[in-house]
């Protein structure tokens, strides 16, 4: 008999998705934001990494809530879609921000 997936999968997935980004963001020294130091690669600042993490986290939670209407893995799928949406939204805005930074 097939068992339904446990609802505990939602917090676990959120923790898995959100935790690395937050830990990485929290590990960055605060002063790095002001100096514009680039710990990852050219053009990517800790500020932008935090923006990715926050927007993806918000998108993940929003998607998980909206996914409630779908039984089964609705919450988890919603969380992933929301997180990817948040990441894409930030990524699409990134060139404008970089231009602003250059100015």
């Amino acid at each position, binding site marked *: *008999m097939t068992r339904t997936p446990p609802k505990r999968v939602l*917090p676990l997935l959120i923790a898995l998705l959100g935790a690395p980004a937050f830990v990485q963001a929290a590990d960055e020294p605060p002063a790095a934001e002001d100096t514009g130091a680039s710990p990852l690669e050219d053009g990517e600042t800790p500020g932008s990494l935090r923006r990715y993490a926050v927007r993806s986290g*918000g998108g993940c*939670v*929003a998607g998980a809530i909206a996914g*409630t209407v*779908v*039984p089964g893995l609705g919450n988890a799928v919603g969380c992933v879609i929301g997180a990817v949406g948040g990441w894409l939204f930030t990524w699409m805005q990134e060139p404008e921000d970089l231009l602003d930074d250059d100015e």
Partner: protein
Amino acid sequence: MKAAVRFAEYSLTGGFFWLNVFLLLTLLHLDAGQGPWTGALLELWSGWLRRLGEALGRAGGLEALTTALTLLVVFATGLLLDLIAPLFFAPFEVAAFRRFFRDPRQAWMGELTRRHGDYLGRDLEDFLREPVFSWRDPRLAGRQRHRYERLRAFLLAHLYTHAAGTRLDELLDQLRLVRTSRALSLSLALLALFLATLVGLAEEGSFASRYAEAAAILIPLGLFLLSVTITRATFQRLCLLLSAFAYHICRGESG
């Protein structure tokens, strides 16, 4: 249900929803950077009240109409929440109902449904045998929900019909509580959804610190989990009561 009770329920749930909207608007307009946040909060609210008073003063004599319209909006919101909440929380209810009646101690339900097989058919057996959702058959969720609604309606109708002399007040209270808590939970879930969406679309520098960023994600998540917990807890109590009443009436019939 008496009209007064219904009015009270819808007013409560509709009022709670608008309270959430008010808090959300406060969060959006609050400029905590101005100074102590309590001062900024009071200044914001007093500004809103002043502008509302001015608008009502300009309207002159329309206070009664405004009050009536406000009550109507609150009542209509409560009604809408009550209509939408079962759709939103249906997956939790179906899963909780199925889990409850899969307990071997609830095997007596089979006896009851067999006796009324002309109405229920194999609804109970299929409901308990099949999962709530399957990727192979996406329409299964709809069928399971339909079965759940038929079984629940049957149990309630059975109780109402055969509970001669039995006081069902406790059960009716629990039914009302489930409906109200479900609507309130939907308000909380909608607030959480708005908040999380705002976080997802937030501009750079919207949050004062990393703690604020973490709180902006954890608060909506906490609100959502709270709403789900409230709904599940009240629904499980309803299942317990429904089954206990139905069991005694069923045993009374066969005895």
